């Protein structure tokens, strides 16, 4: 299965919310190996969760 970037980013989002099927994981890994843009997004999406945790942790 050849993913488009749109499909790959959708899986990158869903990966935060559900366990991806084996086929999805393989397709995603293949896509990320070849696509720098989606690779960047794959790091930015989990970062949002860390940023939010930090935001709500503010002392003030």
């Amino acid at each position, binding site marked *: 299965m050849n993913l*488009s*970037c*749109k*499909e790959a*980013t*959708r899986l990158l*989002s*869903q990966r*935060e*919310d*559900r366990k991806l099927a084996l086929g999805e994981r393989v397709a995603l890994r293949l896509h990320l190996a070849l*696509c*720098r*843009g*989606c*690779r*960047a*997004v794959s*790091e*930015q*999406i989990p*970062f*949002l*969760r*860390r*940023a*939010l*945790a*930090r*935001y*709500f942790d*503010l002392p*003030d």
Partner: protein
Amino acid sequence: MAFKDDLQALRPYLLRYASLHLRNRDAAEDAVQETLVAALAAEAGFAGRSNLRTWATGILKHKIVDAIRRAGRERPLEGEDGSDDFDALFDERGHWHEHPDAWPDPDAALQEKQFLAALQRCLEGLPPRTAQAFLLREHMGLETAEICKELGVTSTHCWVLLYRARMALRECLGKSWFGQ
């Protein structure tokens, strides 16, 4: 008496917190008011705990989810429909028009107050239901099935809301903070 004053001192924080989630001043005021009343009544439940803000925020979270649930029942599909609106990012074959770049050392940004202010502005820029879905998931830790139920939307719509929130936030932070 001191307990009551300590609670009142938390009001601005609680109001900011509720406003971010509910996007409606009246609803936020109500949730905070209910929280303060419940907290006062439950003073004994707080005894021995170290952090009043964490404890009060825990109560407020329940009030917020209740308010979101009520709103979801009253106006289930108001705006923000399930259609996909990332045509600006992708071409007709689903490839990036302009592929995103990695952010340089994003975790260092977490130490900066200005970054967190930028994050808040990006959150406030999301459509209300999109923001609610995202915060219920990422901050409240609800599962997507629960989120769909609380918001009164289908599960497909729920995935779309979460996807949209994440993509919009990364776009917004990229522009406003990481200079892309």
